[in-house]
């Protein structure tokens, strides 16, 4: 998910960063020139052959190894092809390539697919068609906005030079191939297990424009939830003096509003922050026989934010219910964390459960949460969610 910042433009390791800067050096870097693509001339492009030769010379390695390094650069999206953009391979010939370090496409996947649909008259690939219809259902109420944006961008792009258009299209295609890989394709963004105690606080940023992109995405996502900007349904109580909006969005309602249920899908934190969302998630976990995870997490929160005087008592309860061998609601924590926690419990303090709590939190976030969003329980909730009628302003 882009919003988490788990993206190659955000987590760029130093050796790769140095390599790309070196490749781009105007004097000593890879030869950049106008490359011919059929009848169009693309400026500032390199050939696959040039990349390989440069790597061989720079690192003093053989062709085979250079081919491998080059292939990784394309696989991970640092360099993208202008010819056959669907195929992320490095061809050691005259095929043109470019660096993907300029700003990534600003188009949310829905708009990207909508554009393709319009341009290619419905000739999307099978998995793209599927995603298109899923997205359509998910953001149904803003679909007109999506199509309008897509049309607007296509219109604007028609005014660009053909060379620019080709570059942008290939860039975008490569970007989405990496960030939304087709089913079955290798997901290069899979970073393995979340590292909880990451000691490097300041992360390498190769391209700050990507972080800007995240702000744009966040505000787009929450736009319809921002009453000062978009209004709210049925009306803003402060303007209409009608409290219906608050009644419909009370903590406990028989039927939550559509915006509210949608918001649970924005992030795990959003789901947990809504007491109703949390209850729904608990119901789901019960069906999966993993409700103890959420109960454990809540109990740990209670320790962290509760009174000093009750810490020992609460930690003892947690041990009895969740950690002791044969406990009624035993939680599955890795042995290293478990050992560390059990050791810490001997001298309980406010933060003694932190490691275990984070482990379970990320387990739920990475595993149960995404499955919950795909479940019938959530889908039904979304389907019967209420969209209030707008009441006319006074």
């Amino acid at each position, binding site marked *: 998910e882009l919003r988490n910042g788990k993206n190659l433009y955000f987590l760029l390791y130093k050796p790769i960063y140095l390599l790309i800067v070196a490749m781009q050096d105007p004097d000593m870097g890879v030869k950049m020139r106008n490359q011919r693509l059929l009848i169009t001339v693309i400026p500032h492009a390199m050939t696959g052959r040039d990349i390989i030769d440069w790597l061989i010379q720079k690192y003093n390695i053989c062709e085979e190894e250079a081919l491998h390094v080059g292939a990784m650069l394309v696989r991970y999206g640092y360099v993208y092809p202008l010819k056959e953009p669907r195929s992320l391979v490095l061809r050691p010939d005259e095929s043109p390539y470019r660096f993907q370090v300029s700003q990534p496409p600003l188009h949310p996947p829905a708009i990207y697919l909508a554009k393709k649909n319009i341009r290619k008259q419905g000739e999307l690939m099978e998995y793209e068609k599927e995603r298109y219809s899923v997205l359509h259902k998910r953001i149904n109420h803003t679909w007109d906005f999506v199509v309008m944006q897509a049309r607007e961008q296509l219109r604007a792009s028609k005014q660009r030079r053909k060379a620019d258009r080709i570059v942008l299209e290939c860039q975008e295609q490569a970007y989405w191939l990496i960030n939304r890989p087709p089913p079955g394709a290798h997901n290069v963004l899979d970073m393995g297990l979340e590292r909880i105690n990451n000691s490097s606080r300041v992360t390498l940023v190769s391209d700050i424009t990507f972080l800007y992109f995240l702000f744009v995405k966040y*505000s787009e996502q929450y736009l319809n939830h921002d009453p*000062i900007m978009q209004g709210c349904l049925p009306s803003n109580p402060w303007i209409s003096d009608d409290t219906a909006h608050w009644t419909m969005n009370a903590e406990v309602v028989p039927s939550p509003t559509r915006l509210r249920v949608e918001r649970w899908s924005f992030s795990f934190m959003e789901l947990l922050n809504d007491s109703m969302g949390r209850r729904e998630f608990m119901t789901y976990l019960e069906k999966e026989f993993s409700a103890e995870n959420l109960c454990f997490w809540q109990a740990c929160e209670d320790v962290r934010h509760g009174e000093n005087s009750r810490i020992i008592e609460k930690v003892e309860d947690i041990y009895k219910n969740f950690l002791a061998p044969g406990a009624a609601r035993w939680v599955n924590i890795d042995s290293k964390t478990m050992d560390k926690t059990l050791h810490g419990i001997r001298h309980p303090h406010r933060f003694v459960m932190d490691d275990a709590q984070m482990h379970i939190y990320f387990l739920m976030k990475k595993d149960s949460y995404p499955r919950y969003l795909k479940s019938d329980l959530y889908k039904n909730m979304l389907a019967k969610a209420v969209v209030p009628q707008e009441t006319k302003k006074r």
Partner: protein
Amino acid sequence: MCDQTFLAATFGPCDSCGKASPLMNIYIKNDAINYCSFCMEVMACQGLQSGETLASLKKESDSLKKKLEEERGKLNDIELHQVAEKVEMLGALSIKTKRLLKGHGNKVLCMDWCKDKRRLVSSSQDGKVIVWDAFTLNKEHGVTLPCTWVMACAYAPSGCAVACGGLDNKCSVFPLSLDKNENLSAKKKAVAMHTNYVSGCTFTNSDMQLLTSSGDGTCALWDVESGQLLQSFHGHTADVLSLDLAPSETGNTFVSGGSDKKANVWDMRSGQNIQSFESHESDINCVKYYPSGDAFASASDDSTCRFYDLRADREVAVYQKDSVIFGASTVDFSLSGRLLFAGYNDYTINVWDVLKGTRVSVLFGHENRVSRVRVSPDGTALCSASWDNTLRIWA
């Protein structure tokens, strides 16, 4: 930690002194070097040996600066507002005063919303603390503190208590009784004790912990029940004027701003200062997190508001205008983070487009300084408190 004059692109051991710090990665004659800011300056001065003139030293330092700018350019040739160029322009906003809360006899210094989205607590210069149902304008509770200048007040997450403090150097917690006749002052519990005025306070995720900032230059975390100091935060070199808790999923950090022009990010568990930003030219009066928790905004006496990204460890936008010449005292984001509301000493509230950096609206109405602005928990309204003794609800 964050030097104004160069951008930290990486963090690690300096090639020259070996100290772990933010590093600049540049190429000098095709060699990659990674120096911290201090060593970078030293290297620039290295030319000054016997016979070396100031002119040649300047030439060397200029060429180094140019190389640094080139590298910086490679990283940052695009600004936030440029990336946001493709984003739709905001339509004209129609925001008007919808409620006028009169009742304080003196300057209103602070306010905070209740989680129920309609109640709020406000505090003033004459020691009065009032709890309102802002929707009906009903005053539900009133307390008079024995001190003046109650600069800080906060509503407890449960809605059952409020905290307030100021010139008495303390922060006290009052339970809110349903019994109107009950004397709230009698139930007051002093929780925080500083050695100078309390400038800001907030409950953490429960009613049980209180975070305070003070004119004594520190912030502190307290156990409400016992009044015990759980953690103190040292690092500011002058009065701390504001703080805000991060809305992160692990809930462990907060940001503070002070008269030393610094905004510091703290780890609540260890008490450590993990990040620091110094780009304002005067006191920072207010700090507030962006809704996602990845960034925060600040308001300063230098008449600007700024936006800092925590991941990039730098300032990413400045909100300023030639016609805005008075200090900014308070900021808050709209629910989506697209709008930034800022209150100024010229009695106005400016509304900024966070992404594009432009001002989209000015809210006139107050007849004296705006001391505090806060968007309601569901984003339906903005509340402003002012030295004109009133509070306004805007929507």
